[in-house]
């Protein structure tokens, strides 16, 4: 059973009417397979949201630590005037995991706003990809998007990739995208260890700091759980 792969293929659809607001949080911790990449869940999920009403809001928050392969792109179709879409994501991959996740923000209505914060952490021989689309249609005057994608690599056999698509057809829109890739600096690690933290705890602490902008969007009890999960997922990735 553990050597085989199982498929999880869920569909989630959200619709928000006038002044409605939906916050959908996921902490995903399916079996990722063993260290050699045997077994694990294929997590192929369809999630989409429509902000139909004026001032409606859909906020996706996800912490993806499990599954052998994750493909998941929760979207927001921002139709209602002044509607808001948010996507906050932490994806951690270790060993042979692959995570390819991101979002689609389709701005149709006036003064629509979207925020994307995606943090990916890759360790072991894993690959982690942010793939996302921001599209501003001609009627979406006053639309705003801000995207921040940061990747952290732990070890030299993993990969971290950022593939954003930005399509803007409205001059009265503002789109900003930023992405960085880095590793945990030796300076940071050493600083923590000098203060008495084990290397593993130091990595955990720094990774949690790296993800803070996303974790703070989670409900309290989830956030605590998520922090622990991050630490567990990265076990054995340093040293």
């Amino acid at each position, binding site marked *: 059973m553990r050597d085989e792969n199982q498929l999880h293929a869920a569909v989630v659809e959200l619709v928000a009417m006038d002044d409605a607001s939906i916050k959908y949080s996921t902490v995903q911790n399916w079996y990722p397979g063993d260290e050699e990449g045997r077994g694990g869940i294929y997590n192929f999920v369809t999630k989409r949201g429509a902000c139909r009403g004026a001032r409606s809001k859909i906020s996706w928050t996800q912490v993806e630590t499990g599954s052998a392969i994750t493909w998941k792109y929760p979207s927001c179709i921002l139709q209602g005037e002044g509607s808001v879409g948010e996507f906050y994501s932490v994806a951690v991959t270790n060993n042979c995991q692959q995570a390819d996740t991101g979002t689609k923000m389709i701005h149709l209505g006036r003064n629509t706003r979207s925020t994307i914060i995606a943090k990916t952490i890759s360790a072991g021989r894993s690959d982690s990809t942010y793939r996302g689309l921001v599209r501003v249609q001609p009627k979406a005057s006053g639309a705003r998007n801000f995207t921040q994608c940061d990747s952290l690599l732990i070890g030299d056999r993993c990969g971290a990739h950022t593939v954003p698509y*930005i399509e803007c057809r409205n001059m009265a829109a*503002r*789109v900003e995208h930023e992405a960085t890739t880095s590793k945990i600096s030796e300076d940071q690690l050493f600083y923590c260890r000098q203060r008495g933290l084990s290397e593993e705890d130091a990595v955990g602490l720094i990774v949690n700091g790296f993800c803070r902008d996303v974790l703070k969007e989670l409900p309290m009890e989830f956030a605590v759980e998520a922090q622990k999960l991050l630490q567990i997922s990265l076990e054995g990735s340093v040293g």
Partner: protein
Amino acid sequence: MISPDRNGPLNLFTSRLEGITGAERQQAVAALQRAGLPTRRVEAWKYTALRALGQSSLSAPAALYDAKAARAVLDDVLSAQDSLASLPRLVFVNGRHAPELSVLPKAVTVTFFADTPRFGTAAAPDRDPLVALNTALAEDGAQIQVEAGVDGGALVLLSIGLGVQGSAFSFHPRHAVILASDARLELICVQAGQGAYFHNPVTDISVGSGAALEHVTLQLEGAEAVGLGTVYADVASEGVYDSFALGVDGLLLRHEVHARLGASRAAVHVNGVQRLGGSQVGDMTSVITHAAPDCISRQTVRNVLDGHARGVFQGKVLVEQIAQKTDGYQMNQALLLSPDAEIDAKPELEIYADDVRCSHGATVGALDDEQLFYLRSRGVPEAQARQILIEAFLDETLGLISHAGAQALCRAMLTRKGAAGESA
């Protein structure tokens, strides 16, 4: 059998691809028949369609051309920046070397593809259909070589396209630039013309260790022309490939750079500016491959889009596992001047090494109302205020062109375009 649907507009070349001889060219034809010319279903061409090539078969250009018209294009370029007149130049008309318009350089060796065809090593037909098309059909081109330790100075490579009423044709120059170790060269490529034609140059570049090539390309093609320039550059240890592309005139423009940092402490800059209006489409695509440690890549591309113009930026930075201590930076910004203008951007990082510093950014927006108001409140008329702000937006990026004459030429062409835009 070439199907127009699967093979893109390859059927426009059917008759010319028959009966081609030579191993390299035949392999290229085979590659083309396998892959076709790209459609928008191909990821690298997601935002740019070759439909602009039209429906009629594209023949080889006629051997004779309008000498007066060619001279006029040359004079027009030189009048925009007269300091260039004193530089050596290689002039091509509809893809063939025009000795009567050229002034051969002294410090560098130039041979011509038509005399001694060499296909180079970096541009591979099986990876890239436009390179394959070029390989199959290449007629002529400049092969520029700078010996070790030699400063080749500045050289103008002017490709003139002259459309002919009622005739659809294409030309496929194959250029090569080889800098031996510690050599230097400033190469100013101007692609200028009038009317309709398809210009598909491929430039194969090798920058030796410690060598430095500044490569400025201006796309000032004919109003109905399609200009696709593909550059493959290999940079050796401590070499610098500093490229700048300016997209201004043409129906469809694409400037595509594949730069490979093959040995440590090499550097590439892939900068550019597009200033488009009407229903122009301009595409700046690049793939920068870090294949060795301690290399640097820098990219700044700015787009100013008016009318119904569409700008495309695709920039991929690939960092291989071996390329530790990579320092990569990429920034793409667009200014939309009209409600119908569009920008499509795909900045992409693909990273397999952990000890790297890579970042990219992209922004899209309109002119800043507050700044515009400030200028106007000081008495500057609106049109001029807009022009000032557009120039300010492009200024820093143009400042990245080291060769003063090339920079001045780019600025002059942008001012012209701005004036044309305001009067339209």
